[in-house]
């Protein structure tokens, strides 16, 4: 069950890390669900046309698709300053429709059998073998990525600049930094990660494509960034926690615990609400931790 939680959590973690970068730059992209769906489809479609060994190209395709969606969002919300919430929503809805539309032809098509996950030899170790070493490469990749993003944000000048832009785009602009370019870059990278997360679902986690495959995980990832107070390590932990909650539902069912599956299904969402409340209670604390310009439009020249 630990393995399943980690696997489920990786999806959220990847998307959450992408959204983290967005939000650290002060941009709230509600289009996560749409980007993940498009990425899932792009990855699946690419994998169908590629020989089995080149799955990594499929993942790349997914990342590009996610970045492209994000660029669309960026052109509107950052380039000409449309309302971030509405534009993100539009992206989500568009992504849902677009992926369902284009993906209709892929529903029945199967991917070839997948290679076994995990690091060879190490995964065959007794007891801890599968628990520690039996995962899909992307799981390990996510952990590395989290570390890399943490280093980037808190140890590099570029990351400092990103945080500064999220804190006060006006000040950054006054100092001559290209605020909108930085935000756009963050948004596109975030979109790429969301696309990657989607591809992980379609290629590794479920290994199929259906309409609305992501089933709300994009929205949970959005909640995750607030839950994790915009810190990479906490995002990964929170993602695994949420993954665990989802798995708990199935696990209990398997054990024959008589709880109605739908009620269990509410758990992750209710948990998110509870956490949100706990975090938001102290306004001063939020102000100190949240990127101050989150959600606000920046227009140079005003």
């Amino acid at each position, binding site marked *: 069950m630990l393995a399943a939680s980690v696997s489920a959590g990786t999806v959220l973690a990847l998307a959450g890390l992408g959204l983290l970068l967005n939000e650290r730059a002060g941009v709230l992209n509600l289009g996560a669900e749409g980007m993940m769906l498009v990425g899932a489809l792009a990855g699946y479609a690419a994998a169908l046309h590629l020989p089995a060994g080149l799955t990594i190209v499929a993942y790349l395709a997914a990342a590009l698709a996610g970045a492209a969606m994000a660029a669309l969002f960026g052109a509107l919300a950052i380039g000409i300053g449309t309302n971030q919430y509405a534009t993100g929503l539009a992206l989500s*809805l568009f992504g*849902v429709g677009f*992926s369902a539309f284009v993906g209709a032809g892929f529903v029945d098509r199967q991917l070839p059998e997948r290679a076994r996950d995990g690091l060879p030899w190490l995964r065959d170790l007794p007891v801890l073998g599968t628990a520690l070493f039996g995962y899909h490469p992307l799981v390990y990749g996510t952990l590395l990525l989290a570390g890399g993003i943490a280093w980037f944000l808190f140890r590099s000048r570029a990351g400092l600049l990103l945080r500064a832009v999220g804190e006060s785009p006006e000040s950054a602009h006054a100092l001559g930094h290209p605020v909108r370019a930085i935000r756009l870059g963050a948004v596109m990278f975030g979109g790429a990660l969301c696309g990657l997360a989607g591809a992980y679902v379609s290629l590794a986690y479920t290994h199929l494509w259906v309409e609305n495959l992501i089933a709300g995980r994009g929205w949970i990832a959005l909640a995750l960034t607030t839950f994790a107070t915009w810190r990479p390590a906490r995002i990964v932990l929170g993602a695994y926690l949420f993954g665990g909650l989802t798995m708990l539902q199935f696990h209990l069912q398997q054990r024959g615990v008589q709880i109605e599956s739908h009620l269990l299904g509410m758990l992750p*969402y209710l948990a998110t609400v509870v956490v949100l409340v706990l975090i938001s209670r102290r306004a001063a604390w939020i102000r100190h931790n949240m990127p101050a310009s989150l959600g606000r439009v920046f227009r140079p020249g005003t």
Partner: protein
Amino acid sequence: MLRLAPRSAPSRALTLAAPFVALALTIAVGAVLFLALGHPPGRALALFFLEPLRGGDGWSELAVKATPLALVALGLAVCFRANVWNIGAEGQFIAGAMAASWVAMRATESSHAYLMLPAISLAGLLGGGAWAALVAVLRDRWNASEILVSLMLVYVAEMLLGYLAYGPWKDPEGYNFPQTITFLPVTQVPLLAEGHRAHVGLFVALGLAAVAYLFLFRTYAGFQLAVGGQAPRAARYAGFSARRSLWTALLGSGVLAGWAGALEVTGPLGQLTPHLPVGYGFTGIIVAFVGRLHPFGILLASLLMSVLYIGGELAQSRLGLPQALSGVFQGLLLFTLLACDALASYRILRVPAQRAGAAAVPS
């Protein structure tokens, strides 16, 4: 070389033209899409946009779809104008439908329509309102983001619906399908005309549009809401209660979404199933924006969205195109509208090429 420079106030002409430009752009992209799929664009576009408007049956179906959209969007318009981002109208819709179903299932052969119908509507209002009140209290007391809370509650509502339909409320004679009993005719929302599915909910929507218009533009409470949404510091200066605006906005949109759910479940559907949520709560957001958050604009926009919905169904049945195409069009429409609206706040300037990067000379 062209450059964008901000205006001090958005151009009125462009703002008025924006929805039409957006529609034109969407149609243009649609034509391209159809071409790419190998269908003659003219025929496909006519099927999508014009066919739904044909005949009494067509208009009836449009009304059936437009009514819940309009109701939801009217409430959301009030909410968004107050800068309260209620993304969970879908959940409030479901909650209203569940409450209305509970009342509808109490009906017996001797029930009176005069009691039943108002009771059903009331239940819908209360259900949706209560679901939205959850969001309001969490935001009011603990500052929790209404965007995320309302959204999470959508999924909770969906789960609750599934639980009820598969469990306690399942029709014992329903062949084990997840559905409630079919509601008795006395609970049905009155139809507008025999043989068509359109019902009096349409008049409810029209009436509420007028009410919303008066509220937003002619009452002090509506003014306070608008100021609170646009300039919270000015609202504090004026002494307007932010808390009152928050509750008004959320309760208003919840109540309307719940009513829409009640009308839907006791009208066209006639029973409660897990297939109730078709996304009116989310499409309602698009309708609100396309309608410029203005009650009359929303009426037109809900009509337009219904056309897109039905056009999608027609395209699926007659051309074999995926139903999801509607979603694509709807998303596109919102995108283009947002873009056009934002561009109305800019002016295009011509900059001499050799002085690229210099301060522009107004053309």
